[in-house]
């Protein structure tokens, strides 16, 4: 019964969203108050219905109801509870349900908390939000129904892909989706603004917190994914420029640009048309990401669907959403006039530079990701575009941006001068130069880029700290007064400082792990020793044991440095009982200086020898510490009073509607 209830709730949600996407829109155009007012209850009801549907799906997973196809193909009775739950979204149909759940949740949030939004804007935002939802409901109900039954029900399920049975990955998709779908808010606001024909500071102030929240989730989701790849896939890598990674990275780049241009739109009443366009682009890239991952056009562990009708459906949906919104932009965009003047050397100039680089980078990643598809479609043969291409394009683009990123916050709005900013940054410059030189001398055989990246990381980190120090006038006024100023800094400016600092810390981690990783592959008998970066790994042999739904071979290593014991590592190879599929569990010992990383492969001969793969990954942990700082900075900024009390009352036309 539960499955039918869920299915029924989903159909009702479709009708609710059709109502929500049409009536308030017409009402806002014709100024019918009661029609406008319908947006709020329909948005909340739609959310409750999808939540019910989602609850039903979780329930059939929890009780392992094997008369539901989805449960059969993705679950198994002896799977641990957490993976029964994460199995709900570990597949195509369930992940779509999660997608619309989050979409309607954001809609309901606007309905409930958007009390101080002008009613017509709110109605239009909710209507646009519902239009996207209609597309997804239709897609689910016609091609990917999660509640489909099977008869006769099998005795047990096929289990979840063992690679996905991991705590890091259990929460990776929800995080990523909160980010992807969060950008739908910026999109809905952008479309609503185009329909209204007006973008003002209040609009930008409303869009910023939603974009920021989405950005935080997306950042966390990407970091979680890369961390998972690092410890689960056993290659010691953390970013592969895999199409699916790119799919989540493109909205991040565009979203970061949007975050910065929305600031300009709010503070300076300019770049408005561009901000609206960026909002459309960001969400379009999120949709494209969903399409690339779900349609199965790309080779990847993430590609669930191989059914071509689904691909065609998503493609049509994509064309309607992206094409329609861009057409609307072309038609209404020119009406969005800006009043602010623009000087190249100014805060807004620096933010625009960020925007140009970020969008160029996103375009380059898009091109590299889609090029193999395009070439294949045009009959140009099979090619693959991998990490070397992306590194060759992406890194040179980022270098000038990071140099400018430390300077930008020192510039004033409207009109500024670079010289005083550079003078303040002389210490940061010296330190960065010194670090770069030392790193270059210490690793002369390694890539020069590592030293450059390390220097850039130090430059940006010290730049962020210097900016904070000059903001509180540290060493210029008595220390007590300066510290008092720290507590009075606006939280949004803390967000900026922490965001930049976090990126700097991440860059330091990437520089270390990208440039100076030491790797060694060999056959080791018990008792064999291998030296890596001053660490001595001794192989102590392998042992068998069993886990909850898998059996394990664990290879034990003792690590010593200068004769002193550092740690014991147990690298595992697991075989899952249901799918008979092996997975590699790397053993990792994390320190701030670098990670010791060990993996075992197949046995080699009869004397207990195994193929082993050992790594020293310098500074790698800083990459994730940096993303944590970035997300934390975003969260702090979200609590800024300016975002909450923000949207001031508007005058003119809206007042007339409110009165009518």
């Amino acid at each position: 019964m539960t499955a039918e209830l869920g299915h029924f709730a989903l159909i009702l949600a479709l009708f609710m969203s059709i109502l929500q996407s049409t009536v308030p829109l017409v009402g806002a155009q014709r100024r019918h108050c009661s029609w406008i007012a319908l947006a709020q209850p329909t948005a909340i009801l739609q959310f409750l219905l999808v939540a019910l549907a989602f609850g039903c799906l979780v329930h059939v997973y929890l009780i392992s109801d094997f008369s539901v196809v989805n449960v059969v193909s993705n679950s198994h009775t002896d799977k641990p509870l957490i993976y029964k739950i994460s199995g709900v979204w570990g597949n195509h149909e369930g992940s779509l349900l999660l997608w619309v759940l989050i979409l309607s949740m954001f809609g309901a949030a606007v309905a409930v908390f958007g009390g101080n939004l002008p009613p017509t804007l709110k109605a239009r935002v909710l209507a646009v939000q519902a239009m996207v939802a209609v597309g997804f409901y239709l897609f689910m109900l016609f091609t990917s129904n999660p509640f489909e039954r099977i008869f006769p029900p099998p005795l047990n399920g096929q289990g979840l892909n063992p690679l996905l049975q991991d705590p890091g990955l259990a929460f990776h998709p929800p995080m990523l989706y909160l980010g992807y779908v969060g950008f739908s808010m910026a999109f809905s606001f952008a479309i609503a603004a185009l329909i209204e024909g007006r973008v003002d500071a209040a609009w930008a102030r409303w869009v910023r917190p939603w974009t920021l929240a989405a950005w935080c989730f997306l950042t966390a989701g990407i970091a979680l994914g890369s961390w998972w790849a690092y410890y689960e896939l056993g290659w010691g890598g953390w970013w592969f420029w895999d199409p699916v990674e790119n799919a989540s990275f493109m909205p991040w780049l565009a979203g970061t640009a949007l975050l910065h241009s929305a600031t300009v739109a709010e503070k300076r009443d300019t770049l408005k048309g561009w901000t609206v366009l960026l909002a459309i682009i960001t969400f379009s890239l999120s949709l494209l990401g969903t399409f690339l991952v779900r349609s199965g056009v790309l080779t990847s562990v993430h590609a669930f669907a191989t059914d071509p009708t689904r691909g065609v459906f998503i493609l049509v949906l994509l064309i309607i959403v992206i094409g329609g919104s861009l057409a609307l932009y072309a038609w209404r965009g020119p009406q969005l006039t800006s009043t602010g003047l623009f000087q190249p050397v100014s805060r807004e100039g620096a933010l625009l530079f960020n925007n140009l680089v970020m969008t160029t980078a996103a375009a380059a990643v898009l091109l590299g990701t889609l090029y193999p598809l395009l070439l294949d479609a045009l009959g140009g043969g099979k090619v693959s575009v991998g990490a070397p291409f992306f590194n060759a394009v992406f890194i040179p683009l980022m270098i000038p941006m990071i140099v400018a990123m430390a300077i930008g916050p020192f510039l004033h709005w409207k009109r500024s001068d670079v010289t005083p900013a550079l003078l303040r940054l002389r210490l940061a410059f010296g330190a960065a130069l010194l670090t770069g030189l030392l790193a270059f001398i210490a690793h002369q055989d390694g890539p020069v880029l590592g030293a450059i990246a390390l220097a850039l990381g130090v430059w940006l980190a010290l730049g962020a700290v210097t900016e904070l120090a000059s903001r509180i006038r540290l060493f210029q006024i008595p220390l007590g007064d300066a510290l008092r100023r720290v507590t009075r800094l606006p939280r949004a400016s803390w967000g900026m400082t922490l965001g930049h600092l976090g990126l700097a810390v991440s860059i330091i981690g990437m520089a270390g792990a990208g440039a100076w990783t030491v790797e060694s592959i060999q056959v080791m008998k018990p008792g064999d020793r291998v030296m890596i970066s001053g660490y001595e790994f001794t192989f102590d042999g392998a042992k068998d044991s069993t886990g909850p739904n898998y059996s394990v071979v664990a290879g034990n290593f003792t690590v010593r440095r200068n004769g002193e014991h550092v740690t014991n590592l147990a690298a595992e190879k697991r075989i899952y009982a249901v799918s008979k599929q092996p997975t590699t569990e790397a053993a990792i010992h994390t320190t701030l200086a670098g990670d010791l990383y060990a993996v075992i492969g197949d046995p080699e001969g009869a004397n207990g020898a195994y193929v082993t793969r050992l790594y020293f990954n310098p500074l790698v942990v800083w990459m994730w510490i940096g993303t944590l700082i970035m997300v934390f900075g975003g969260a702090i900024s979200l609590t800024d009073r300016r975002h909450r009390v923000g949207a001031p009352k508007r005058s003119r036309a809206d007042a007339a509607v409110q009165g009518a």
Partner: protein
Amino acid sequence: MKRKHKRLTFVMIGLLLLGSSAALILTAFEDNIVFFYSPTELVDKKPDPAQRLRIGGLVMAGSVEKLAGAVVAFTITDTAKTVTVQYKGILPDLFREGQGVVAEGHLKGGVFQADEVLAKHDENYMPPEVAEALKQSGQWKPKETTQ
């Protein structure tokens, strides 16, 4: 600066960025694109050892062989022609005999020296390139892609 000049400055900066990134992309494309070959194409075309390639096909049953120094050798086939692949390291978890696989590396003296081996998804999944290569050699069995 006049408003017009300012706008010109931004347009110039924008064009400069666009131009340099286009140049970056073009040079990167030239050096870093990897072409995909089926074993038949590899045998027929005999590409230059310096060229980096991707090959794909099925791992021939019984062909996986352990050599000294953690090197593994196996044979990839599209059922028409075969190629021997050598790889140093630990094969991915999903690597199995009779399954589809993609390898990246260089062809040296008739042996494909791979530095990356990809075997993805579950046992029913076939990398699209491999499916294509099998189709071309007329050995495509559609049953293998059903989920």
